[in-house]
């Protein structure tokens, strides 16, 4: 037993050396006044909460992440359900298709969306040829473009987690419900949905959290209104070397992440 536990040590070492330790260094930095030097201060945290700018952007980021999560859920659930319960063949192929986007970097995908969504871009040409639209959609460099980009990047997480929880659901239970006279809707509401809740929650967390910290897609697709809390952190680190304030914002974000995970865990228990 002990030997088997030892097998974990490379992973544990990596986690500690490249995850936990840097996190603590950052935490330490967030209380310093001037780069790696300087004295202890709470200024970085009070700055954040005393300026309307940061609170407003935090609210905007949370709203954006919630929208993305909700849309991912609406897109992913039917797909996961069909894959798990309705079709018999081709599941592997569908899963592969879902995973393929992971083979390209998020940056490349964001740039691809620029080409698709821009005025006179592929999407417009396509819709125009179908006579569905006239003129321009004006989609690129809007909040909608950011949501589209983020949904595309994160919805596979949602599909996969929901698919896995639905796969575990025993078909016999569904058959039993049906033979006892439950309508398909009642079966779904009383059996399928509650039993896939873990998948929904896990998927939502896996989508919501990276969205909170995203900065590439908002920057590239959001145009003049592309600011989110992630771009603020990025600018602190790369534009003005404001490591301390950047670290403080990152930790406030982390606190929000932990709070949302706590909320999700509680929601899971209660149901």
């Amino acid at each position: 037993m002990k030997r088997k536990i030892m097998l974990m040590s490379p992973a544990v070492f990596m986690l500690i050396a490249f995850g936990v330790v840097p996190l603590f260094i950052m935490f330490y930095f967030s209380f310093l006044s001037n780069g790696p030097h300087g004295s202890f201060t709470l200024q970085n945290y009070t700055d954040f909460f005393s300026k309307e700018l940061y609170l407003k952007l935090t609210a905007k980021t949370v709203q954006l992440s919630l929208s993305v999560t909700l849309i991912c859920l609406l897109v992913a659930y039917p797909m996961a359900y069909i894959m798990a319960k309705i079709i018999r063949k081709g599941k592997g192929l569908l899963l592969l298709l879902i995973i393929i986007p992971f083979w390209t970097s998020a940056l490349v995908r964001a740039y691809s969306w620029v080409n698709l969504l821009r005025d006179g871009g592929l999407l417009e040409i396509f819709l125009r040829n179908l006579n569905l639209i006239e003129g321009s959609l004006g989609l690129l460099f809007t909040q909608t473009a950011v949501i589209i980009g983020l949904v595309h990047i994160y919805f596979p997480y949602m599909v996969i987690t929901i698919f896995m929880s639905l796969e575990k659901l025993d078909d016999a239970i569904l058959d039993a419900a049906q033979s006892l006279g439950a309508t398909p809707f009642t079966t779904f509401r009383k059996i399928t949905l509650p039993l896939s809740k873990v998948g929904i929650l896990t998927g939502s967390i896996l989508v919501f959290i990276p969205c909170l910290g995203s900065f590439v897609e908002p920057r590239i697709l959001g145009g003049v209104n592309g600011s989110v809390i992630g771009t603020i952190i990025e600018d602190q680190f790369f534009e003005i070397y404001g490591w301390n304030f950047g670290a403080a914002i990152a930790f406030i974000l982390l606190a929000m992440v932990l709070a949302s995970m706590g909320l999700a865990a509680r929601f899971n228990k209660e149901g």
Partner: protein
Amino acid sequence: MNKKGFLRKAMVTLLAGIMAVGVAGCGLRSSQPEAGKETKTLVVVNWKDYGSDKAEVVKQFEDKYQCKVVHIYMSSEEELLTKLRTDGVGKIDVVLPNASVLPVAEKENLLAAIDTGKLENYQYIADKFKTLPENSLDGKTYAIPWVWGSTAIAYNSNMIKENVASIHVLWDEKYKGQIGFRDDFNDAVMTAAIALGQNPHKPSDLKAVKAKLLEQKPLNKTYWKTGDEWSKLFANNQIAIGVMWSGQAALMKKEGQPITFVIPREGAIGWVDNWAIVRNAPNEDLAYKFIDFMISKEFQENWAKSGGPAPVNSLATAALDPQLVKDNCMDEASLNKLYFISYQTDEVKKAWNELWQEVKAQ
């Protein structure tokens, strides 16, 4: 100056940022001259692929002075400062700082005062560069200008027929939805200050600057960050005009894009990269020779011809194709309209950055 590419930014994790302090010095050890060998080794810190590390250039210098040249690369000015502060003094010979870190390096006694009399080519440097306030302290010169460029206005001459001459074109309703403004707090604040007739080095009224930027915001197609973004938007006719760098505009013109670069009459932003000698440099004589070589007509002309930034050596500028000089706005008239990016304290940078964030979040 698009050296801090977006791609790299996206890849560099916070972890790397934190580790940078600890690791910064590690690269230096291997570059120390080996004891017992006759050839001297000159240690240079510069950006990667930035003129001085070209194989032919290095070889030419090595052959001429019977030495070895070793490059250490920096990825930011701050990193250079950190290198000097930690263990660069006494190990590195020559560095390439700009105005954002020079005053700090001078004050902290990290650089050696330069006797410009020992540089044969110094006399050919255009006057405007010899008086940059950041390059000297207490009457002593610490940095020798090398190359420069400007951030001004570029436009698509197929889409815009008028002769653009004023910075106010960025505020012209006519071009609503066709403008690409730069997502950079320094460029934004300085550009707005120039448009308002304020001193761009020290804007007197930041509230007016912010209002001016907010006024401009709805006219933009987008704010661009990397040169790559600009090229794509420009090539696809998504933007027709905007704030752009001289170097990239000239390069795009060379590729056949219908791009025209102008320094507006109100002025524009300029930048300069300078060479400096580190205090206690192991090979000070060689360092002088290296800098002299870097500002020589021959080197400067060749680099500018192959797509490098504008030379400070006026002999080099005079020898270049007049069309290239015009396209790139390298001429003296353009040069004299520029406000070179000056040193700003951390407080000022923070305030400007916050102002810009507020404009973007509005």
